[in-house]
């Protein structure tokens, strides 16, 4: 078992969730509650990572964050190290490729709230912040939870983008998915098996917990 790869994967997944949670709530809420020109294009752009092959997405991220790109140059001038093949670069890529997994379930969650409920909140004198916190978030909770679990599980298992942007630097960018691949390449099927089982277990627990919580909240709300 490559503990360093596992802990790196968990750290990457955790931080990705932490960054995407507020971002997804903001974007999902905005897309659900407002109609604007070009909304379909924005939604299509956000869904793009779902349909692009991971290697293609990884390639574009590599180019966009590389030393020759403005982003890469800016990062290097500020932090004195390249963005690609670093944990920070990997985190940025992870956030980007998880955008649809975070935003779409949350948008669906906010979409499911009847518009009159928001109107009723305004008529009760609730501020926008209180409406979000007290009314919308509890009602969109299943969507938010799905987003968290999907983002977490998807980050743990992502391979193509991670390999393209991060390479396989132990302790820095070598995630458990890469470690499994390395073990198989080295004919260490037992090692690969243990790590695969660990990933399977973590994913199963995360998804199971999400379903359980969702079911409990439904029972509480609808009796």
């Amino acid at each position, binding site marked *: 078992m490559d503990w360093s790869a596992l802990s790196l994967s968990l750290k990457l997944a955790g931080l990705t969730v932490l960054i995407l949670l507020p971002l997804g709530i903001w974007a999902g809420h905005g897309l659900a509650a407002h109609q604007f020109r070009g909304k379909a294009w924005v939604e299509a752009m956000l869904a793009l990572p779902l349909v692009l092959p991971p290697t293609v997405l990884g390639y574009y991220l590599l180019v966009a964050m590389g030393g020759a790109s403005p982003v890469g140059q800016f990062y290097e001038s500020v932090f004195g190290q390249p963005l690609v093949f670093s944990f920070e670069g990997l985190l940025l890529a992870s956030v980007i490729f998880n955008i649809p997994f975070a935003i779409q379930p949350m948008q669906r969650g906010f979409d499911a709230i009847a518009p009159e*409920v928001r*109107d009723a909140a305004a*008529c009760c*004198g*609730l*501020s926008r912040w209180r409406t979000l916190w007290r009314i919308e978030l509890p*009602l969109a909770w299943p969507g938010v939870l799905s987003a968290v679990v999907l983002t977490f599980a998807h980050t743990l298992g992502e391979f193509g983008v991670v390999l393209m942007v991060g390479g396989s630097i132990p302790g820095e960018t070598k995630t458990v998915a890469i470690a499994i691949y390395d073990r198989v390449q080295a004919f260490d099927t037992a090692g690969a098996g243990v790590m695969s089982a660990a990933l399977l277990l973590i994913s199963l627990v995360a998804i199971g917990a999400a379903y359980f919580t969702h079911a409990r909240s439904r029972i509480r*709300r609808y*009796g």
Partner: protein
Amino acid sequence: MAEGIQLRLKQRGPIPLDARLKCAPGQVLALVGPSGSGKTTILRAIAGLLRVAEGEIRCAGESWFDSGRGVYHETRQRRVGYVFQNYALFPHLSALHNVMEAMLDRPVAEREQRARDVLARVRLAGLESRVPAALSGGQQQRVAVARALAREPQVLLLDEPFSAVDRATRQRLYRELAELRRDLAMPVILVTHDLDEALMLADQLCVLHQGRTLQSGEPYAVMTRPDTVEVAQLVGLRNVFRAGVVGHDEARALTIIEWRGHRLEARLQTAFKPGTQITWVIPQGHIMLHRRDRPSRGERENPVSGPVIECLPLGENVALTVAVNGPDRPPLFLTVPAHVARRNGIAMGVEIGLSLLADGIHLMPSDDTRTPAKSR
């Protein structure tokens, strides 16, 4: 609060509006009209949930909207109590917390007790901890009313609040609202398409069509004395005909009109000069059926007769269609209790006599563009 609410709203689209309304504190104003006539749009504009292109809304002496002066208060800044058609309760919160959310401007310590008091006022004591899904339709409506009142609104807006409950519950809720409104000091605007509901609950009635306010007034007056043929049709008056004014008999307080060769006496309405063509209307309640077995004195009042061409039992009543002066002319419609129809042997083809009570005959300007030619 002495001023109540006054508003003037105008826009061409997307939902056309040309409405003027006012409602005094403590009064109930019913907005009636067919679906799509702009009733809910007006409520939403009052609440600030919809911004209208042009107009003014003043409530309790405060300007909430004035397009001329660029005044626009957000919904949160207007003290409105809004009962939505499907109640729009917060489904994850108990009845108590639904109500408490509407009193955030009160000190935290007071909120719970005050919310319990408001719920008790709408007869929901003991059900405070239930979520909306665990309450019946009528109970949900009461939570919605309690939540609307908890904000101590300057205007109470009720959007078809009785449409989602069964008939028995509706009758009970009517009584409760009638009782509750005696204590309400703010203007109440009730949207409904049920004229009986308006008649029962409202002090004022406003008829709307395609966003225009056509006529406002005391409900019974609007429903029996419409200003125009359009209003007559919207309030469900079916006996609309054309006639000529013969003259006025001011000593007897009567106006004489000629209709299909009959000289009919109508309530005195001197606004219509002799010789002018008018449209007249008579509510069904002012048509008296002559008893076939024992003629009475009332039969001398505007008697007409004809065969029954349609006899439709409707529960405890029977809807009759009577051809007067030939089958090719628009008939008279009236409803009689089923036992009256039975006792008088009324059936298809039977010739019956009717009196058109003078007090119920209401004259309106002749409106060739709106009155079907056949109604002569």
